[in-house]
């Protein structure tokens, strides 16, 4: 009786163990280490399907795809990593390697000062991070204002006044950044071309003429969709329609 109980507990715990994403992750990483990429990928995919997410998981999957020379999925998962965590340096680094395998050479439009700023500052952090810092500045403002109110020496008063004004400015800035980031994140939809080669047409019909062609791995911005066609925009500003089966949306 005791033995049976033990066995039941053991099997139950081991099955629990097998299903826990963390242990699967460790298992897959070991397979990666001994270069069994296919097997590692299968386990990563299992984790992915178990309704959990993590930037590290996507990053590892992207590495597996890179190792097995699959351009589009590799880039797709690096981008997905960066979508979840825009500050993952490893993913940025490896993405620049994976991009070497892309055929298309798209000359990006020169960025305006505002776009550069928005990329290097506003989108450096998640909008929730901006929201937290806004709350932080709000508290800081309250403390500094009270200090200003109760301090007697004019030096202190001046200091607290200025710093409280500054924190009000910071509150406004961080809230604006948070909403700017939020709107951009919610409206920006990107996709990766999965087809080896895909014709981008001038209209969403098969008969329309080809505007340009794109190859596997290129990132495009999705503008709208219609009956199995997607209107896309590429980095140099060209716009066209592509068949939805040729791309995979990043989300």
């Amino acid at each position, binding site marked *: 009786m005791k033995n049976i109980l033990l066995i039941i507990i053991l099997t139950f715990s081991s099955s629990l163990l097998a299903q826990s994403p963390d242990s699967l992750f460790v298992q897959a990483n070991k397979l990666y280490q001994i270069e069994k990429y296919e097997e590692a990928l299968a386990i990563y995919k299992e984790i992915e399907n178990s309704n959990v997410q993590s930037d590290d998981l996507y990053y590892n999957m992207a590495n597996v795809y890179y190792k097995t020379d699959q351009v589009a999925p590799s880039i797709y998962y690096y981008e997905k990593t960066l979508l979840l965590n825009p500050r993952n340096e490893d993913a940025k*680094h490896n993405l620049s390697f994976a991009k070497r*395998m892309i055929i298309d050479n798209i000359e990006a439009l020169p960025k305006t000062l505002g776009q550069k700023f928005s990329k290097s500052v506003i989108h450096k952090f998640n909008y929730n991070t901006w929201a937290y810092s806004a709350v932080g500045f709000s508290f800081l403002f309250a403390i500094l204002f009270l200090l200003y*109110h109760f301090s007697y020496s004019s030096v202190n008063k001046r200091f607290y006044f200025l710093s409280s004004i500054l924190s009000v400015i910071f509150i406004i800035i961080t809230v604006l950044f948070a909403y700017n980031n939020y709107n951009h994140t919610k409206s920006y939809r990107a996709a990766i071309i999965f087809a080896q080669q895909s014709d981008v047409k001038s209209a969403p019909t098969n008969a329309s003429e080809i505007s340009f062609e794109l190859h596997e791995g290129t990132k495009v911005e999705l503008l709208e969709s219609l009956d199995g066609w997607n209107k896309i925009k590429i980095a140099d500003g060209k716009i066209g329609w592509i068949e939805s089966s040729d791309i995979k949306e990043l989300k």
Partner: protein
Amino acid sequence: MKMIMRFTTILFLAIFSQNLIAQELSFKATVSKNSLGSNERLRITFSINKQGADDFTPPNFKKFKVLAGPMQSTNFSYVNGKQTFEQSYTYTIQPIKKGVFTIPSATIKFDGNTIKTNTVKVTVTGAVEIPKDPNDPTYIASQNIHLIAEISNSSPYVGESISVVYKLYVDVNNVSVRDTREIESPSFNGFWNQNIDVNKWQPKMGEFQGKEHRYVTVRKTVLIPQKTGKLIIEPMAIEVVAGVPVGRRDLFGNMISRNTTFTVTTGTRFVNVKALPVENKPVNFSGAVGDFDFDVTASKTELKANESAQIKVEVSGKGNLKLIDLPTIETPNGLERYEPEHKENILTNLSGLRGKVYDQYTVVPQYRGKYKIPPVSFSYFSLKNRKYKTITSDAIVMNVPQGKTPLTDENNTIVKRDVISTGINIRYISNSTHFEPIGEKEDFLNSNLFYALLILPLFSIPLGIFIGKQKQARDNDVVGNKRRKADRLARKYLSQAKKQLGKKEEFYIALEKALHNYLKAKLQVETSDISKDKIADILKHKNVDESIIADFLKVLDDCDYARYTPTSNVMMQQEYDNSKEVISKIDKQL
């Protein structure tokens, strides 16, 4: 006189009438014969006898074919004072079929008037045997020398190679060939063509029209039709000098022959070129027809940055190799590709072209990393099973373990890194992670908590100010402050005693100790060893009221007594309260 008059009249009339005759206008049609065989020819002449006619329009020779004409001639003569003029237009025509036909009239303009000829009736009978002279050497030669064009396939597909072999057949029993000269080369419009050199005219025996002939191959050409439809192969003509025996022998018994020169021709030949089927035609089909093999190979797949490698796109096999457009490869950004070098190694023979063609690309990777050259496909029409076939090469992955690191998007500067010789150039996977469930994770931004936390400090400012004001007010109340302070002190020192409340011995020891400790802290005097009088002195010295000192000493005394007398909890509590009161009182005065 009357006589003279009459004579003059006659003379005048004569002169006048003569003039009249000379001036009569006639425009007529004459034919060489009115009845002819359908294989014979006919000459028709339209002539006018007056100068100055213009704008001749020939009749419509409906049932006749114009072989030659119009030949225009003008004849002007002056004989015995008589002037004649004739301008004529002559056509040579041949009937198309049998029957009785009327050649309609021709017209010409004279002096502003349009004049017509008469119509001519012609009877065309069946073909007439044109008598041949069997002894005419040219005739004999033409019967015994033939030039034949042998076409291997007269209905090929577009792009399928065919061959034409020109052979000169000679019946050596009847004629001998002395000399030949090619006077007209065949032309192949719509074909790609290549001659196969015929070095020596090697006579061979062959059968032609059921008779043994000797023949030589004059010319061999490989043709590849370039368009569909009925294509014409223009004839080839050879002038032959043939020796025809005249049937007599010379003194030595040798046959005497006469040389005759005549032209043999192949006649126009037609090739019916079929179009390739439209169904299942691959998109990238560029006209390759035959049986091919396709391969894309790299000279090396592991190399350093800035080192070059060759990529060969090769089509080999049999078919219209010279007309093939080789597919081009595409390379990723950092892999520089140079214009390919096109090379051919093709053998041409009667069955077509065989060999290989290839484009050799030089590629140079610029950075460390992996480069993927995507698969390339090549489509052709297979003649074996009359179907389109597509061969797709494998993708080539070039691994570049050493070299510069590519520019990163972020800062556009070249990041110099130590050279790692392991060949792994991407960063390793991450080994630990924190999983979070996918789904509608509540955003902090826009949540109620966010708004509350953002607004809360603003509302807390008035609250803070209110609290601060109260504190200030209390700070300004000196007496109250002193009392509160003393209470606090008393509570602090008596806390130990309070804990022991209920246990007689411990309580009083603690209480006494607390009182002494208080004095010690307040007066910086160790009072536990000095007498109560001394304590009273010190306190008096510090301007403490007599009554309070008395109270204080009473409490100390009580502590002493209580230890040796029975006490109740109520008394202890009373003692505690007393000491608390005393301490606050003293504190106020100190």
